[in-house]
Protein backbone atom coordinates (compact mmCIF):
# COMPACT_ATOMS: atom_id res chain seq x y z
CA UNK A 1 0.00 0.00 0.00
CA UNK A 2 1.34 3.43 -0.86
CA UNK A 3 2.14 5.90 1.88
CA UNK A 4 -0.70 8.14 0.77
CA UNK A 5 -3.23 5.31 0.87
CA UNK A 6 -2.01 4.25 4.30
CA UNK A 7 -2.28 7.83 5.60
CA UNK A 8 -5.78 8.08 4.21
CA UNK A 9 -6.71 4.80 5.85
CA UNK A 10 -5.26 5.98 9.18
CA UNK A 11 -7.43 9.10 9.10
CA UNK A 12 -10.43 7.14 7.81
CA UNK A 13 -10.32 4.61 10.65
CA UNK A 14 -10.35 7.41 13.23
CA UNK A 15 -12.40 10.27 11.83
CA UNK A 16 -14.11 8.93 8.73
CA UNK A 17 -12.57 10.30 5.57
CA UNK A 18 -15.89 10.67 3.75
CA UNK A 19 -17.55 12.70 6.50
CA UNK A 20 -14.44 14.79 7.05
CA UNK A 21 -14.06 15.82 3.44
CA UNK A 22 -17.77 16.11 2.68
CA UNK A 23 -17.93 19.91 3.26
CA UNK A 24 -15.00 20.36 0.87
CA UNK A 25 -16.64 18.28 -1.84
CA UNK A 26 -20.03 19.90 -1.34
CA UNK A 27 -18.79 23.51 -1.29
CA UNK A 28 -19.29 25.34 -4.56
CA UNK A 29 -18.52 28.83 -5.78
CA UNK A 30 -20.95 30.65 -8.09
CA UNK A 31 -19.37 31.12 -11.48
CA UNK A 32 -20.32 34.34 -13.29
CA UNK A 33 -18.87 37.54 -14.72
CA UNK A 34 -18.10 39.01 -11.25
CA UNK A 35 -16.43 35.86 -9.90
CA UNK A 36 -13.01 37.49 -9.93
CA UNK A 37 -13.97 39.62 -6.93
CA UNK A 38 -14.17 36.45 -4.85
CA UNK A 39 -10.36 36.26 -4.80
CA UNK A 40 -9.85 39.43 -2.76
CA UNK A 41 -10.77 37.99 0.62
CA UNK A 42 -8.45 35.04 0.06
CA UNK A 43 -5.59 37.33 -0.95
CA UNK A 44 -6.18 39.38 2.21
CA UNK A 45 -5.98 36.17 4.25
CA UNK A 46 -2.77 35.22 2.45
CA UNK A 47 -1.22 38.62 3.23
CA UNK A 48 -2.23 38.18 6.87
CA UNK A 49 -0.35 34.86 6.92
CA UNK A 50 2.67 36.61 5.36
CA UNK A 51 2.46 39.18 8.17
CA UNK A 52 2.40 36.43 10.79
CA UNK A 53 5.50 34.75 9.33
CA UNK A 54 7.54 37.91 8.69
CA UNK A 55 6.37 39.41 11.99
CA UNK A 56 7.59 36.32 13.86
CA UNK A 57 10.93 36.64 12.07
CA UNK A 58 11.25 40.33 13.00
CA UNK A 59 10.55 39.40 16.63
CA UNK A 60 13.82 37.45 16.68
CA UNK A 61 15.81 40.70 16.58
CA UNK A 62 13.44 43.57 17.41
CA UNK A 63 13.63 45.26 20.82
CA UNK A 64 11.00 47.81 21.92
CA UNK A 65 11.75 50.91 23.99
CA UNK A 66 13.02 54.38 23.09
CA UNK A 67 16.70 53.44 23.36
CA UNK A 68 16.58 50.15 21.50
CA UNK A 69 13.76 50.22 18.94
CA UNK A 70 15.42 52.27 16.20
CA UNK A 71 18.81 50.61 16.71
CA UNK A 72 17.36 47.11 16.58
CA UNK A 73 15.51 47.82 13.32
CA UNK A 74 18.72 49.35 11.98
CA UNK A 75 20.51 46.16 13.03
CA UNK A 76 17.90 44.06 11.19
CA UNK A 77 18.26 46.22 8.07
CA UNK A 78 22.08 46.33 7.98
CA UNK A 79 23.53 43.36 9.88
CA UNK A 80 21.10 40.46 9.66
CA UNK A 81 21.25 38.56 6.38
CA UNK A 82 18.12 39.30 4.33
CA UNK A 83 16.86 41.41 7.24
CA UNK A 84 16.13 44.29 4.86
CA UNK A 85 14.05 41.91 2.75
CA UNK A 86 12.05 40.51 5.67
CA UNK A 87 11.27 44.00 7.01
CA UNK A 88 10.44 45.34 3.55
CA UNK A 89 8.06 42.46 2.90
CA UNK A 90 6.40 43.10 6.28
CA UNK A 91 5.98 46.81 5.47
CA UNK A 92 4.84 46.30 1.89
CA UNK A 93 2.47 43.53 2.85
CA UNK A 94 1.04 45.77 5.59
CA UNK A 95 0.21 48.36 2.95
CA UNK A 96 -1.16 45.85 0.46
CA UNK A 97 -3.37 44.17 3.07
CA UNK A 98 -5.05 47.51 3.82
CA UNK A 99 -5.68 47.92 0.12
CA UNK A 100 -7.00 44.39 -0.45
CA UNK A 101 -9.15 44.53 2.70
CA UNK A 102 -10.77 47.79 1.55
CA UNK A 103 -11.20 46.40 -1.98
CA UNK A 104 -12.76 43.22 -0.52
CA UNK A 105 -15.11 45.31 1.63
CA UNK A 106 -16.29 47.45 -1.29
CA UNK A 107 -16.67 44.41 -3.56
CA UNK A 108 -18.87 42.75 -0.94
CA UNK A 109 -20.79 46.02 -0.62
CA UNK A 110 -21.43 46.42 -4.34
CA UNK A 111 -22.13 42.73 -4.96
CA UNK A 112 -24.55 42.84 -2.00
CA UNK A 113 -23.04 39.80 -0.35
CA UNK A 114 -23.79 41.23 3.12
CA UNK A 115 -27.56 40.58 2.78
CA UNK A 116 -29.52 38.23 5.00
CA UNK A 117 -28.41 35.67 6.20
CA UNK A 118 -24.80 36.92 6.03
CA UNK A 119 -25.10 39.98 8.31
CA UNK A 120 -22.66 38.65 10.89
CA UNK A 121 -20.10 37.74 8.24
CA UNK A 122 -20.16 41.41 7.23
CA UNK A 123 -19.91 42.65 10.83
CA UNK A 124 -16.95 40.36 11.60
CA UNK A 125 -15.30 41.50 8.36
CA UNK A 126 -15.76 45.17 9.24
CA UNK A 127 -14.21 44.61 12.67
CA UNK A 128 -11.33 42.82 10.96
CA UNK A 129 -10.88 45.84 8.67
CA UNK A 130 -10.64 48.11 11.72
CA UNK A 131 -8.19 45.67 13.29
CA UNK A 132 -6.03 45.85 10.15
CA UNK A 133 -5.98 49.65 10.49
CA UNK A 134 -5.10 49.13 14.17
CA UNK A 135 -2.23 46.86 13.15
CA UNK A 136 -1.05 49.57 10.76
CA UNK A 137 -1.23 52.26 13.41
CA UNK A 138 0.45 50.30 16.22
CA UNK A 139 3.15 48.85 13.96
CA UNK A 140 3.99 52.24 12.54
CA UNK A 141 5.62 53.52 15.76
CA UNK A 142 7.78 50.44 16.31
CA UNK A 143 10.86 51.62 14.30
CA UNK A 144 10.77 54.81 16.44
CA UNK A 145 11.65 57.21 13.62
CA UNK A 146 10.64 60.85 13.13
CA UNK A 147 7.54 60.28 10.99
CA UNK A 148 6.27 57.43 13.14
CA UNK A 149 6.81 59.50 16.28
CA UNK A 150 4.74 62.45 15.04
CA UNK A 151 2.15 60.19 13.39
CA UNK A 152 1.59 58.48 16.74
CA UNK A 153 1.48 61.82 18.55
CA UNK A 154 -1.23 63.10 16.20
CA UNK A 155 -3.01 59.75 15.95
CA UNK A 156 -3.33 59.42 19.72
CA UNK A 157 -4.27 63.11 20.14
CA UNK A 158 -7.28 62.70 17.83
CA UNK A 159 -9.26 60.30 20.07
CA UNK A 160 -8.04 62.46 22.96
CA UNK A 161 -10.44 65.20 21.81
CA UNK A 162 -13.58 63.16 22.36
CA UNK A 163 -15.44 64.55 25.40
CA UNK A 164 -15.27 62.54 28.64
CA UNK A 165 -13.54 59.37 27.38
CA UNK A 166 -10.94 61.20 25.29
CA UNK A 167 -8.37 61.98 27.95
CA UNK A 168 -8.29 58.52 29.60
CA UNK A 169 -8.07 56.97 26.11
CA UNK A 170 -5.08 59.14 25.27
CA UNK A 171 -3.29 58.22 28.51
CA UNK A 172 -4.11 54.55 27.92
CA UNK A 173 -2.79 54.59 24.35
CA UNK A 174 0.38 56.53 25.17
CA UNK A 175 1.15 54.96 28.50
CA UNK A 176 1.48 58.45 29.96
CA UNK A 177 1.01 62.09 29.01
CA UNK A 178 3.43 62.01 26.08
CA UNK A 179 4.62 59.68 23.36
CA UNK A 180 7.72 58.06 24.89
CA UNK A 181 9.49 54.73 25.09
CA UNK A 182 6.53 53.57 27.19
CA UNK A 183 4.30 54.19 24.17
CA UNK A 184 6.56 51.99 22.02
CA UNK A 185 6.24 49.17 24.56
CA UNK A 186 2.47 49.56 24.60
CA UNK A 187 2.09 49.67 20.82
CA UNK A 188 4.42 46.66 20.63
CA UNK A 189 2.20 44.72 23.02
CA UNK A 190 -0.95 45.64 21.08
CA UNK A 191 0.75 44.86 17.77
CA UNK A 192 2.21 41.44 18.56
CA UNK A 193 -0.11 40.03 21.23
CA UNK A 194 -3.53 41.61 21.65
CA UNK A 195 -4.45 42.44 18.05
CA UNK A 196 -3.15 39.13 16.60
CA UNK A 197 -5.11 37.19 19.23
CA UNK A 198 -8.38 38.97 18.49
CA UNK A 199 -7.74 38.93 14.74
CA UNK A 200 -7.07 35.17 14.69
CA UNK A 201 -10.33 34.43 16.51
CA UNK A 202 -12.28 36.77 14.24
CA UNK A 203 -10.73 35.30 11.08
CA UNK A 204 -11.79 31.84 12.25
CA UNK A 205 -15.32 33.14 12.89
CA UNK A 206 -15.36 34.94 9.52
CA UNK A 207 -14.22 31.83 7.62
CA UNK A 208 -16.57 29.62 9.63
CA UNK A 209 -19.52 31.83 8.71
CA UNK A 210 -18.52 31.79 5.03
CA UNK A 211 -18.34 28.00 5.19
CA UNK A 212 -21.72 27.85 6.95
CA UNK A 213 -23.64 30.08 4.55
CA UNK A 214 -21.79 29.30 1.34
CA UNK A 215 -20.71 31.91 -1.17
CA UNK A 216 -23.23 34.57 -2.12
CA UNK A 217 -24.11 35.34 -5.72
CA UNK A 218 -25.04 38.96 -6.52
CA UNK A 219 -28.85 39.56 -6.64
CA UNK A 220 -28.58 40.59 -10.29
CA UNK A 221 -27.02 37.25 -11.20
CA UNK A 222 -29.47 35.35 -9.01
CA UNK A 223 -32.35 37.03 -10.85
CA UNK A 224 -30.86 36.05 -14.21
CA UNK A 225 -30.46 32.48 -13.00
CA UNK A 226 -34.03 32.40 -11.75
CA UNK A 227 -35.31 33.48 -15.16
CA UNK A 228 -33.27 30.86 -17.01
CA UNK A 229 -32.21 28.10 -14.60
CA UNK A 230 -30.11 26.49 -17.35
CA UNK A 231 -27.67 29.38 -17.23
CA UNK A 232 -26.72 28.73 -13.59
CA UNK A 233 -22.99 28.00 -13.31
CA UNK A 234 -21.08 26.83 -10.28
CA UNK A 235 -17.61 25.44 -9.77
CA UNK A 236 -16.37 23.13 -7.05
CA UNK A 237 -14.44 24.91 -4.35
CA UNK A 238 -12.01 22.03 -4.22
CA UNK A 239 -9.97 21.71 -6.30
CA UNK A 240 -11.23 24.09 -9.02
CA UNK A 241 -11.56 27.33 -7.06
CA UNK A 242 -8.84 26.50 -4.54
CA UNK A 243 -6.27 26.04 -7.32
CA UNK A 244 -7.28 29.35 -8.90
CA UNK A 245 -7.01 31.01 -5.50
CA UNK A 246 -3.59 29.42 -5.05
CA UNK A 247 -2.49 30.98 -8.33
CA UNK A 248 -3.75 34.36 -7.10
CA UNK A 249 -1.70 33.90 -3.92
CA UNK A 250 1.34 32.98 -5.95
CA UNK A 251 0.91 36.12 -8.06
CA UNK A 252 0.44 38.21 -4.89
CA UNK A 253 3.66 36.77 -3.49
CA UNK A 254 5.43 37.65 -6.73
CA UNK A 255 4.18 41.25 -6.58
CA UNK A 256 5.15 41.47 -2.91
CA UNK A 257 8.64 40.08 -3.47
CA UNK A 258 9.24 42.39 -6.43
CA UNK A 259 8.06 45.48 -4.50
CA UNK A 260 10.15 44.60 -1.45
CA UNK A 261 13.27 43.85 -3.49
CA UNK A 262 13.02 46.83 -5.85
CA UNK A 263 11.72 49.39 -3.35
CA UNK A 264 13.06 48.40 0.08
CA UNK A 265 11.36 50.24 2.92
CA UNK A 266 13.22 53.22 4.39
CA UNK A 267 14.12 53.38 8.06
CA UNK A 268 14.26 57.19 8.26
CA UNK A 269 15.84 59.18 11.06
CA UNK A 270 15.64 58.24 14.73
CA UNK A 271 12.83 60.05 16.55
CA UNK A 272 13.87 63.06 18.61
CA UNK A 273 11.09 64.23 20.96
CA UNK A 274 12.80 67.65 21.16
CA UNK A 275 12.98 68.34 17.43
CA UNK A 276 10.34 70.16 15.37
CA UNK A 277 8.04 68.15 13.17
CA UNK A 278 9.43 68.04 9.62
CA UNK A 279 7.60 70.10 6.96
CA UNK A 280 5.15 68.19 4.73
CA UNK A 281 4.73 65.35 7.24
CA UNK A 282 1.82 63.08 6.34
CA UNK A 283 0.31 59.85 7.61
CA UNK A 284 0.33 56.60 5.65
CA UNK A 285 -1.86 56.72 2.55
CA UNK A 286 -4.73 54.80 4.16
CA UNK A 287 -5.20 57.47 6.81
CA UNK A 288 -4.71 60.28 4.32
CA UNK A 289 -8.41 60.82 3.50
CA UNK A 290 -9.22 61.39 7.18
CA UNK A 291 -6.12 63.52 7.66
CA UNK A 292 -6.98 65.74 4.69
CA UNK A 293 -10.63 66.06 5.77
CA UNK A 294 -9.62 67.13 9.28
CA UNK A 295 -7.24 69.69 7.76
CA UNK A 296 -10.07 71.20 5.70
CA UNK A 297 -12.67 71.40 8.48
CA UNK A 298 -12.89 74.92 9.94
CA UNK A 299 -11.82 75.34 13.56
CA UNK A 300 -15.37 76.19 14.67
CA UNK A 301 -18.69 75.12 13.16
CA UNK A 302 -21.68 76.81 14.88
CA UNK A 303 -19.56 77.23 17.99
CA UNK A 304 -18.59 73.54 18.10
CA UNK A 305 -15.01 72.40 17.66
CA UNK A 306 -14.68 71.50 13.95
CA UNK A 307 -12.06 68.82 14.46
CA UNK A 308 -14.27 67.11 17.02
CA UNK A 309 -17.17 67.12 14.56
CA UNK A 310 -14.91 65.56 11.94
CA UNK A 311 -13.74 62.82 14.29
CA UNK A 312 -17.28 62.08 15.44
CA UNK A 313 -18.40 62.12 11.79
CA UNK A 314 -15.88 59.44 10.81
CA UNK A 315 -16.85 57.46 13.91
CA UNK A 316 -20.52 57.64 12.90
CA UNK A 317 -19.64 56.59 9.35
CA UNK A 318 -17.73 53.57 10.67
CA UNK A 319 -20.69 52.68 12.88
CA UNK A 320 -23.12 52.91 9.98
CA UNK A 321 -20.77 50.78 7.87
CA UNK A 322 -20.70 48.04 10.52
CA UNK A 323 -24.50 48.01 10.80
CA UNK A 324 -25.09 48.27 7.04
CA UNK A 325 -26.75 44.83 6.56
CA UNK A 326 -29.41 45.75 9.10
CA UNK A 327 -30.24 48.95 7.21
CA UNK A 328 -30.95 47.16 3.92
CA UNK A 329 -34.35 45.76 3.00
CA UNK A 330 -35.26 42.31 4.16
CA UNK A 331 -36.16 40.87 0.73
CA UNK A 332 -32.99 39.35 -0.62
CA UNK A 333 -33.74 40.22 -4.24
CA UNK A 334 -34.73 43.86 -3.78
CA UNK A 335 -31.84 45.59 -2.15
CA UNK A 336 -31.97 49.27 -1.42
CA UNK A 337 -30.59 51.44 -4.17
CA UNK A 338 -29.39 54.09 -1.74
CA UNK A 339 -26.81 51.73 -0.26
CA UNK A 340 -25.07 51.34 -3.60
CA UNK A 341 -25.29 55.11 -4.09
CA UNK A 342 -23.88 55.81 -0.65
CA UNK A 343 -21.13 53.26 -1.26
CA UNK A 344 -20.13 54.94 -4.52
CA UNK A 345 -20.21 58.33 -2.77
CA UNK A 346 -18.04 57.20 0.15
CA UNK A 347 -15.59 55.40 -2.13
CA UNK A 348 -15.25 58.45 -4.44
CA UNK A 349 -14.82 60.71 -1.41
CA UNK A 350 -12.07 58.47 0.01
CA UNK A 351 -10.25 58.21 -3.31
CA UNK A 352 -10.55 61.95 -4.07
CA UNK A 353 -9.43 62.99 -0.58
CA UNK A 354 -6.51 60.56 -0.69
CA UNK A 355 -5.32 61.98 -4.01
CA UNK A 356 -5.89 65.55 -2.78
CA UNK A 357 -4.05 64.77 0.46
CA UNK A 358 -1.17 63.26 -1.49
CA UNK A 359 -0.61 66.39 -3.57
CA UNK A 360 -1.67 69.03 -1.02
CA UNK A 361 1.07 70.89 0.82
Amino acid at each position, binding site marked *: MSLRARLKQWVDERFGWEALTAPLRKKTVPSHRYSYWYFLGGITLFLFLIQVVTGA*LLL*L*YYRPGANDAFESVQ*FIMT*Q*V*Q*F*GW*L*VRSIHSWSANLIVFTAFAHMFSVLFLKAYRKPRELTWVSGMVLLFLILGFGFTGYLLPWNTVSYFATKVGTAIPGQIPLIGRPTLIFLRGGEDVTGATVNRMFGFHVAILPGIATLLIMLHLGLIQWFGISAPPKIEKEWKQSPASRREMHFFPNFALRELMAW*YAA*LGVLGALAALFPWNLGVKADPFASAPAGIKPEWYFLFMFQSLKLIPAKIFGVDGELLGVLGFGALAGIAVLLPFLDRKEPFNTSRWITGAGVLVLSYMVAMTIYGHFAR
Partner: protein
Amino acid sequence: MDSQSTAPPLARRRFVELILGTGLIASALSFLYPILKYLIPPKLPDYANEAVLAARVSEIKPNQGKIFRFGSKPGLLIESAAGEYSAMSAVCTHLGCTVQYRSDLNQVWCPCHNGMYDIHGRNISGPPPRPLEALDVQVRGDEIFVRRKTEG
Protein backbone atom coordinates in the same frame (compact mmCIF):
# COMPACT_ATOMS: atom_id res chain seq x y z
CA MET B 1 -4.18 1.83 -32.24
CA ASP B 2 -5.64 2.24 -28.79
CA SER B 3 -2.32 2.54 -27.03
CA GLN B 4 -1.20 5.11 -29.61
CA SER B 5 -4.16 7.37 -28.94
CA THR B 6 -3.84 7.29 -25.14
CA ALA B 7 -0.06 7.38 -24.68
CA PRO B 8 0.76 10.88 -26.00
CA PRO B 9 -1.69 12.87 -23.74
CA LEU B 10 -0.38 11.03 -20.70
CA ALA B 11 3.19 11.82 -21.63
CA ARG B 12 2.20 15.44 -22.15
CA ARG B 13 0.52 15.51 -18.77
CA ARG B 14 3.67 14.07 -17.17
CA PHE B 15 5.69 16.80 -18.86
CA VAL B 16 3.40 19.60 -17.63
CA GLU B 17 3.41 18.15 -14.12
CA LEU B 18 7.18 18.00 -14.18
CA ILE B 19 7.56 21.60 -15.33
CA LEU B 20 5.01 22.93 -12.82
CA GLY B 21 6.37 20.81 -9.99
CA THR B 22 9.96 21.84 -10.60
CA GLY B 23 8.93 25.48 -10.80
CA LEU B 24 6.98 25.27 -7.55
CA ILE B 25 9.77 23.48 -5.70
CA ALA B 26 12.35 25.94 -7.04
CA SER B 27 10.33 28.94 -5.93
CA ALA B 28 9.64 27.38 -2.53
CA LEU B 29 13.39 26.92 -2.09
CA SER B 30 14.01 30.52 -3.11
CA PHE B 31 11.62 31.63 -0.33
CA LEU B 32 13.14 29.30 2.23
CA TYR B 33 16.75 30.28 1.57
CA PRO B 34 16.48 33.93 2.77
CA ILE B 35 14.46 32.80 5.81
CA LEU B 36 17.10 30.26 6.83
CA LYS B 37 19.86 32.83 6.31
CA TYR B 38 17.88 35.34 8.37
CA LEU B 39 17.67 32.92 11.29
CA ILE B 40 21.46 32.85 11.66
CA PRO B 41 22.37 35.64 14.08
CA PRO B 42 25.11 37.95 12.76
CA LYS B 43 28.50 37.67 14.46
CA LEU B 44 28.93 40.46 16.98
CA PRO B 45 32.41 41.95 17.44
CA ASP B 46 34.16 40.33 20.43
CA TYR B 47 36.52 42.76 22.16
CA ALA B 48 38.28 40.02 24.13
CA ASN B 49 41.34 40.12 21.90
CA GLU B 50 42.51 43.22 23.72
CA ALA B 51 43.77 43.34 27.29
CA VAL B 52 40.93 43.72 29.79
CA LEU B 53 41.29 45.35 33.21
CA ALA B 54 40.33 42.47 35.51
CA ALA B 55 40.97 44.03 38.93
CA ARG B 56 43.25 46.31 40.94
CA VAL B 57 45.96 44.80 43.12
CA SER B 58 44.37 46.43 46.16
CA GLU B 59 41.00 44.85 45.39
CA ILE B 60 42.03 41.23 45.65
CA LYS B 61 43.69 39.44 48.55
CA PRO B 62 45.64 36.14 48.65
CA ASN B 63 43.44 33.03 48.47
CA GLN B 64 40.65 34.98 46.75
CA GLY B 65 39.00 34.99 43.35
CA LYS B 66 37.16 37.62 41.35
CA ILE B 67 34.81 37.31 38.42
CA PHE B 68 35.37 39.96 35.75
CA ARG B 69 33.93 40.78 32.38
CA PHE B 70 36.03 39.34 29.56
CA GLY B 71 34.47 40.41 26.25
CA SER B 72 30.99 38.97 26.29
CA LYS B 73 31.84 36.17 28.74
CA PRO B 74 32.88 36.03 32.42
CA GLY B 75 36.50 35.45 33.44
CA LEU B 76 37.94 34.37 36.79
CA LEU B 77 41.04 35.97 38.35
CA ILE B 78 42.63 34.15 41.31
CA GLU B 79 45.32 35.26 43.70
CA SER B 80 46.75 32.07 45.22
CA ALA B 81 47.64 31.78 48.89
CA ALA B 82 51.26 32.25 47.77
CA GLY B 83 50.30 35.57 46.12
CA GLU B 84 50.52 34.42 42.49
CA TYR B 85 47.93 35.52 39.96
CA SER B 86 46.21 33.21 37.51
CA ALA B 87 43.29 33.91 35.18
CA MET B 88 40.98 31.70 33.22
CA SER B 89 37.62 31.67 31.51
CA ALA B 90 34.87 31.30 34.13
CA VAL B 91 32.68 29.27 31.77
CA CYS B 92 32.55 25.67 32.95
CA THR B 93 33.58 23.27 30.19
CA HIS B 94 30.79 20.88 31.18
CA LEU B 95 27.56 22.79 30.47
CA GLY B 96 28.56 26.44 30.58
CA CYS B 97 27.69 27.55 34.15
CA THR B 98 29.88 30.27 35.69
CA VAL B 99 32.45 28.80 38.11
CA GLN B 100 33.75 30.37 41.37
CA TYR B 101 36.85 30.20 43.55
CA ARG B 102 36.40 28.32 46.84
CA SER B 103 38.82 29.71 49.46
CA ASP B 104 38.01 26.81 51.81
CA LEU B 105 39.06 24.20 49.22
CA ASN B 106 41.69 26.25 47.33
CA GLN B 107 39.93 25.07 44.20
CA VAL B 108 37.66 26.33 41.47
CA TRP B 109 34.17 24.93 41.84
CA CYS B 110 31.19 24.78 39.54
CA PRO B 111 27.98 24.66 41.60
CA CYS B 112 25.78 23.29 38.84
CA HIS B 113 27.15 19.72 38.81
CA ASN B 114 29.91 19.87 41.42
CA GLY B 115 32.77 20.16 38.94
CA MET B 116 36.24 20.87 40.38
CA TYR B 117 39.28 22.56 38.84
CA ASP B 118 42.61 23.50 40.41
CA ILE B 119 43.74 27.14 40.59
CA HIS B 120 45.19 26.89 37.08
CA GLY B 121 41.87 25.71 35.68
CA ARG B 122 42.78 22.03 35.22
CA ASN B 123 39.77 19.78 35.69
CA ILE B 124 40.40 17.46 38.62
CA SER B 125 37.04 15.94 39.57
CA GLY B 126 33.38 15.88 38.62
CA PRO B 127 31.89 16.06 35.13
CA PRO B 128 34.04 18.79 33.40
CA PRO B 129 35.69 17.19 30.32
CA ARG B 130 38.41 19.81 29.70
CA PRO B 131 40.41 22.42 31.60
CA LEU B 132 39.10 26.00 31.68
CA GLU B 133 40.66 28.21 29.01
CA ALA B 134 43.75 29.74 30.62
CA LEU B 135 44.34 33.49 30.15
CA ASP B 136 47.46 35.65 30.35
CA VAL B 137 47.90 37.92 33.36
CA GLN B 138 49.96 41.14 33.34
CA VAL B 139 50.39 43.40 36.36
CA ARG B 140 51.05 47.04 35.47
CA GLY B 141 51.41 49.13 38.58
CA ASP B 142 48.18 48.75 40.54
CA GLU B 143 46.24 47.30 37.61
CA ILE B 144 45.90 43.65 36.67
CA PHE B 145 45.27 43.11 32.93
CA VAL B 146 44.13 39.87 31.40
CA ARG B 147 44.26 38.89 27.76
CA ARG B 148 43.82 35.81 25.61
CA LYS B 149 46.91 33.62 25.37
CA THR B 150 48.72 34.24 22.07
CA GLU B 151 49.57 31.11 20.10
CA GLY B 152 53.23 30.09 20.00
